[in-house]
């Protein structure tokens, strides 16, 4: 069953917490991964791979750079989830 926006944000919050140690409540739609959440470009690869597994999506490398904020990633997953 496809995840809702809320579920995706909660899932991303868990992932970012696990990878960068950021409290889950800080992970909000308008937050930038690199500027606000301490996720650098390599940690972002880890976030993406974890999100792929969790939400059954494929996020190719060329799309990763467009995912600047939690909102970008959430929209992408909503659109592409299997």
């Amino acid at each position, binding site marked *: 069953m496809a995840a809702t926006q809320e579920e995706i944000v909660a899932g991303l919050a868990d992932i970012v917490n696990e990878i960068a140690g950021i409290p889950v409540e800080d992970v909000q739609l308008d937050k930038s991964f690199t500027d606000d959440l301490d996720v*650098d*470009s*390599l940690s972002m*690869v*880890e976030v*993406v*791979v974890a999100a792929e597994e969790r939400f059954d999506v494929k996020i190719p*490398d060329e799309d*990763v750079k467009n995912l600047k904020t939690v909102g970008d990633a959430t929209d992408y997953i909503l659109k592409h989830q299997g």
Partner: protein
Amino acid sequence: MPKLKPSKGAPYARILGVGGYRPTRVVPNEVILEKIDSSDEWIRSRSGIETRHWANDEETVAAMSIEASGKAIADAGISAEQIGGVIVSTVSHFKQTPAVATEIADKLGTNKAAAFDISAGCAGFGYGLTLAKGMIVEGSAEYVLVIGVERLSDLTDLEDRATAFLFGDGAGAVVVGPSKEPAIGPTVWGSEGDKSETIKQTVPWTDYRVGEVDKFPAITQEGQAVFRWAVFEMAKVAQQALDAAGITPDDLDVFIPHQANERIIDSMVKTLKLPEHVTVARDVRTTGNTSAASIPLAMERLLATGEAKSGDTALVIGFGAGLVYAATVVTLP
């Protein structure tokens, strides 16, 4: 038809000795910053690298190999004449004919040992080790020297922000010989040529010769694609090597992945869920990425510092340009 005699080898093989050579010139990040817009902090946080070694004119591929091999032979407690095979893995020896392995075999004082070079990028050590094991078990050599050696500084574009800080030079060697017990597990290896563009030499030598490009060829890569592959696909290969050897992460003492980038190492350790007690090689911090040389160099350092000891069970995994990979479980010399 005449009946041929079967060849007769040792029941098993093991690594008997290890040696390394690091060039005398230590190059800190400050030197790298002369040519690229970056910072010491960025380089450390993205790669873990603080310093690397760059070879001078005397520290040739052959010279570094001979130094490392001499130490490995002494460590194994054998003499050079007992060596029946010399395998050199390198991508940065610029005189391709003849193979540099023949000069090394000769200068070390082997008795006309079979000698040849292989090209398997950062998986070269594992490829060489697998060939050596086969030669020993099959009976075509009693002792085989496996050398990983690189002068990657010659193939580095110092103006390329994505690679200038990564590479280093050096040589690592092991002596592989007969064993009564299995001490080199089954190798899990392979290639993914469909990803050959992710790490490669910019242009063929011939393009440079005819003046089609003015920049000497260098190694380039798609950093994030390589990072993703290295962490997630290689963790699976590492797990397969453990399974093939019939052990679990709990049985491991040491993890020696190719020293490409400390961030890759950290992520692999997490993905593999290696227990706390496993010692992890982090030689990349002071050696950089030395491709085929990185695993034996890291192995030598862990043993020299006492972080690992003879008889420990180690998982080694190499991966890189090709893309190619090789993983196996070994007993440390």
